[in-house]
């Protein structure tokens, strides 16, 4: 019965209750949608980083990571490793890469780049670079022609080259001798991360192996793509156990910035919501204090006829929780629907896009939130409702029934 009385009580002063409910609604609506935008941005960035840059897992000769020199390859275990990967059901695709640093020069300019010597068919199964080439920007490493190269748009601009231009790559072979070759640009890709685009170029593995004096079976890097992102730790563990001489790293370890971002966002969003709720909590306290002040005589009467302190406390606490929850549910629902809608349409930020792309963000963002967020948020709202009722309820319990009943 107390549950019903509490619910009816919050509608006694409709205007006052609606004011605080509206404040909570707006606070949560704004909070939920901002969280969805932030979370969407981060998720998208992570997805893009994984599908274009890091893949889920990378395997190296540990010395290569320390020294970055071409002679530190995976060779002895290569065949065994490839067979293991082929047998793992979680693995969607893998690609072995020859990876090394070089100077790229055009007629106009020069810059340092990272060269990836890949098997195009295998690479397609792991990274989406091949899909990042627009219709008029050429193709990925197709066809039979030798010495083709795929470069990023930012690099092409820097070197002032176009499709089918030639660039010269200069690098040291495995024996330390300076060598080089001319490559023709067959495709220009563009991801949302222009720093990545400026740095990384793709060539056919077979073209580059001989120049480096490497045998065809060895390579510096093997990247793995999984069907489900949450299988990363399991597969990583399995590979680490199977190949203790190799360094097996997941995407969070490969790109610690992205990894940290993923972990921090979760915490940050809850902190963000907690701050909003805390602010609203003071509003609830104020509203509850007013209702209690108004109902001094009634509360005194209730205590007089035998309603004990627990029940009075429960009633006031429920009123506070109802107020918070009513506003919160409406606010969360509005936030949810706006998130749902914009997750289909996307939010176009291209007017600020240049800045965004420099830091690796896609100019069209898709807000996103998971069910867990709403569940946790609901629990947080209930907690705030309870916390906000403690001070007003204590005031109510201090009332002496004789005094309360007497006061005119």
């Amino acid at each position, binding site marked *: 019965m107390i549950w019903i009385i509490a619910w009816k009580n919050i509608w006694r002063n409709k205007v006052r209750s609606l004011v605080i409910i509206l404040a909570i609604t707006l606070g949560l609506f704004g909070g939920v949608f901002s969280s969805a935008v932030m979370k969407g941005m981060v998720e998208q960035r992570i997805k893009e980083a994984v599908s274009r840059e890091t893949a889920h897992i990378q395997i190296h000769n540990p010395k290569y990571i320390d020294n970055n020199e071409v002679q530190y390859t995976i060779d002895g275990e290569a065949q065994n490793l490839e067979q293991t990967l082929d047998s793992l059901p979680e693995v969607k695709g893998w690609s072995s890469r020859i990876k090394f640093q070089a100077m790229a020069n055009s007629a106009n300019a020069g810059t340092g780049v990272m060269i990836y010597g890949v098997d195009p068919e295998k690479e397609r199964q792991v990274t989406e670079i091949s899909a990042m080439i627009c219709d008029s920007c050429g193709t990925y490493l197709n066809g039979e022609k030798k010495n083709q190269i795929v470069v990023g748009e930012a690099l092409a601009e820097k070197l002032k080259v176009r499709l089918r231009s030639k660039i010269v790559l200069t690098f040291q072979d495995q024996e330390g001798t300076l060598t080089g070759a001319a490559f023709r640009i067959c495709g220009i890709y563009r991801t949302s991360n222009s720093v990545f685009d400026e740095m990384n170029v793709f060539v056919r593995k077979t073209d580059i192996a001989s120049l480096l004096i490497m045998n065809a079976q060895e390579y510096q890097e093997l990247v793995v793509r999984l069907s489900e992102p949450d299988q990363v730790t399991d597969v990583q563990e399995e590979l680490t156990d199977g190949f203790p001489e190799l360094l097996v790293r997941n995407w969070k370890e490969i790109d610690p910035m992205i990894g940290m971002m993923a972990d921090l966002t979760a915490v940050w969003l809850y902190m963000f919501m907690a701050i909003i709720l805390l602010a609203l909590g003071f509003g609830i306290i104020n509203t509850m204090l007013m209702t209690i002040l108004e109902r001094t005589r009634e509360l005194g009467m209730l205590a007089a006829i035998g309603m004990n302190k627990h029940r009075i406390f429960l009633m006031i606490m429920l009123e506070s929780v109802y107020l918070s929850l009513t506003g919160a549910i409406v606010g969360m629902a509005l936030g949810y629907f706006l998130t749902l809608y914009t997750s289909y349409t996307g939010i176009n930020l291209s007017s600020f896009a240049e800045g965004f792309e420099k830091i690796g963000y896609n100019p069209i963002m898709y807000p996103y939130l998971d069910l867990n967020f709403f569940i946790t948020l609901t629990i947080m709202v209930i907690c705030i409702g309870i916390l906000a009722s403690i001070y007003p309820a204590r005031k109510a319990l201090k009332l002496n029934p*004789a005094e309360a009943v007497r006061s005119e």
Partner: protein
Amino acid sequence: MNIIEIKDLKKIYNDSEVAVHAVNGVDLSFKQGEFAAIVGPSGSGKTTLLNLIGGLDVPSEGSIRIDGVNIGELSSRKLINFRLNNIGFVFQSYNLIPVLTAYENVEFIMSLQGYDKDKRHSRTVELLKSVGLGDRLNSRPNKLSGGEQQRVAVARALASKPKFILADEPTANLDSKSTSNLLDIMEKLNREENITFIFSTHDQRVVNKARRVIQVEDGKVISDEAIQSP
């Protein structure tokens, strides 16, 4: 046997500069089935005395025994429970929970006592009928007249099956017709069901209905007489 026994009761308010002896040495006892009025000028200590008997306030000195229990010795938690199960209250105003109907107001006290829904239902209807409100079960207090509200309060006070009912100026806000109506109902309940009523009043017409009149002045009982029924 006495259901209430008051010995040398004193209540002194110290919060102002001069101590106020609101109740200043009262010895009284009440039997089951009494219909007693406490009268006296304003400020004589009627409300204070009733609040002490009802366990709403703590005596400064002396003792109150209800069915042998010294209520001054009960912890505040036990005292609330004691009030719930042993004492019915009717106040001058603000008796009812405004968001509940007459029916729910009466039912509420039984739900506090933990009675199940069926028991609550039959008793609530029966009590509201006995105070003449059988047709107003679903009215909220703001749709009831002052007299009707006080009758709901009497029904609510009876609902918990208390040992006695305390009413502090129950008719002070009522017109004369409602006053006599309420008094008639209280008298009938007293006569037919042996319910004990102790009430304070300023109103001579109410005093005339009482079968015992206790006069207080300056916190002391100055006369206490039984009236022979005519």
